[in-house]
């Protein structure tokens, strides 16, 4: 028998893995230059391919100004806002599994989330603290952009998109605030929406449209839930896409000062 004396499972596995990575399936998934391809080497060409030949190319160019990656300039605040949005999406979807937006069920669903859902409380905490943090990072990002003068031509329009993103972030946070349906939630929202009632002429109509009635009730819950999990995320993703696209079209990160 031509077999070697000792049968080495480890070696065998490595061999299998290697031939799998050389196979058609693996190579069809990971395009040339992917770090997951067999024989990835750290060459200038591959460094370009990692970005250029993958989905990343929608977010990043191959190269950026050296000054643009300095942490002291952007403080990574825009990137962190985006990361927090992704985190909120993931944790939010998990919460949706256990949440029914009907006034009879919602509060007991919240309690069950705390007591009998695996990681329910932790995920809720992540979602809530992450949301507060995102409001802060978006605001600080705006301040950074202002202090570096990055809103000046050609970036005026992206600043406007940014202001819309700030409003959308606040709206997402505020609509989410109602959903636990406890005393804290409904009264905070009552106070918040009382302010809009004061709009000239259409005040009452605005408040009626937002609450689905003259006061907070079951319609409000369903309405805000839909806004919070569907409508506003949808809109913010569109504006973020425009925002990122414009960052690149406006010549990458502004500066140096």
């Amino acid at each position: 028998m031509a077999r070697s004396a000792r049968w080495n499972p480890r070696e065998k596995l490595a061999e299998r893995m290697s031939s799998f990575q050389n196979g058609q399936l693996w190579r069809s998934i990971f395009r040339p230059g992917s770090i997951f391809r067999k024989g990835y080497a750290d060459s200038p060409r591959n460094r370009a391919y990692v970005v250029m030949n993958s989905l990343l190319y929608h977010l990043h160019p191959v190269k950026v100004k050296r000054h643009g990656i300095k942490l002291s300039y952007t403080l990574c605040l825009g990137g962190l806002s985006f990361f927090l949005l992704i985190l909120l999406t993931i944790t939010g979807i998990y919460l949706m599994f256990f949440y029914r937006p009907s006034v009879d069920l919602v509060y007991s669903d919240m309690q069950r989330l705390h007591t009998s859902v695996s990681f329910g409380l932790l995920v809720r905490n992540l979602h809530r603290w992450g949301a507060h943090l995102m409001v802060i990072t978006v605001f600080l990002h705006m301040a950074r952009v202002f202090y570096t003068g990055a809103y000046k031509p050609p970036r005026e329009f992206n600043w406007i998109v940014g202001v819309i993103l700030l409003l959308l972030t606040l709206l997402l946070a505020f609509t989410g605030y109602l959903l636990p349906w406890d005393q804290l939630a409904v009264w905070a929202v009552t106070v918040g929406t009382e302010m809009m009632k004061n709009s000239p002429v259409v005040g009452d109509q605005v408040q009626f449209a937002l609450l689905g009635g003259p006061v907070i009730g079951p319609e409000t819950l369903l309405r805000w839930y839909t806004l919070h999990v569907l409508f506003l995320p949808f809109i913010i993703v569109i504006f973020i896409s425009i925002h990122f696209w414009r960052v690149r079209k406006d010549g990458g990160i502004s500066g140096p000062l």
Partner: protein
Amino acid sequence: MPTPDEIYEQVLSEETSKGSSPAVAQARAKAARVRAQKGAAKPATPAPEASSGDGDGAQPAAQAEAQPAAQAGAQPAAGATARPAGTATKTKPAAKPAPGNGAPATKTNGGGNGAAVPERVQRLLAVVKPESIQKVERQPMDRVNVWPHLMAAEFLALLVVMALLTFFSVAVDAPLRELANFNQTPNPSKAPWYFLGLQELLRYFHPQVAGVTIPTVIIIGLMVAPFVDRNPSTRPDDRKLAIVLFTFFVMSFAVLTIIGMFFRGPGFNFTFPWYDGIFFEL
């Protein structure tokens, strides 16, 4: 004196006979035509320029366009000694004297015998002014690869924030008070913290001003800021006014928010948190 178009034709045929690819031949012919056009506009310039730069003291080769073809066999080297020749190359002593008729220095790539003087072509390439062929818009600058430099930094920031947020979430639970009850108004009732600045303003202004006018002015003011601030500089030293105004705006709002958070107790009346405790939940 041939017109630029004639020069174009001439260089094109020379290049083609030399065996250059059509694209290269055309590009060289176009470049020669542009040079001829430029030279024709100010025919006097080539001579002094060339003589001043010519270290060898050889004849400046302000060369007539007809020359290259004629001398192709006999004097291939001469074609190279165009304007910058003095600085860039060693002019061969045998360089043919220029016809001396003040003809513009149209450095055609003439002398169809490229193989005999291989360096000649390269010298000419170095002479071509960029704007005669293409416009260079982007300045070269110091750039780094996104992978790994930017992505490593982003990933690190992500990990740090994720870690901090996880620790915080393990340590501190989100509040869940008793079931909503519309007959029992908590005292005080506070808006979420990011609206507390506005709620604070309600204490000082008519509801319509605090709840509608001021927020609208803020939003519109932010949106038009780039169009109002017409100062093109981004240096902090040049933008003192903008910085002072924005800082004042942010600070006022921060102060209002902090008062709303910690210094307002039952009835939204003023309290000191160290006497009466904190009436505030996130």
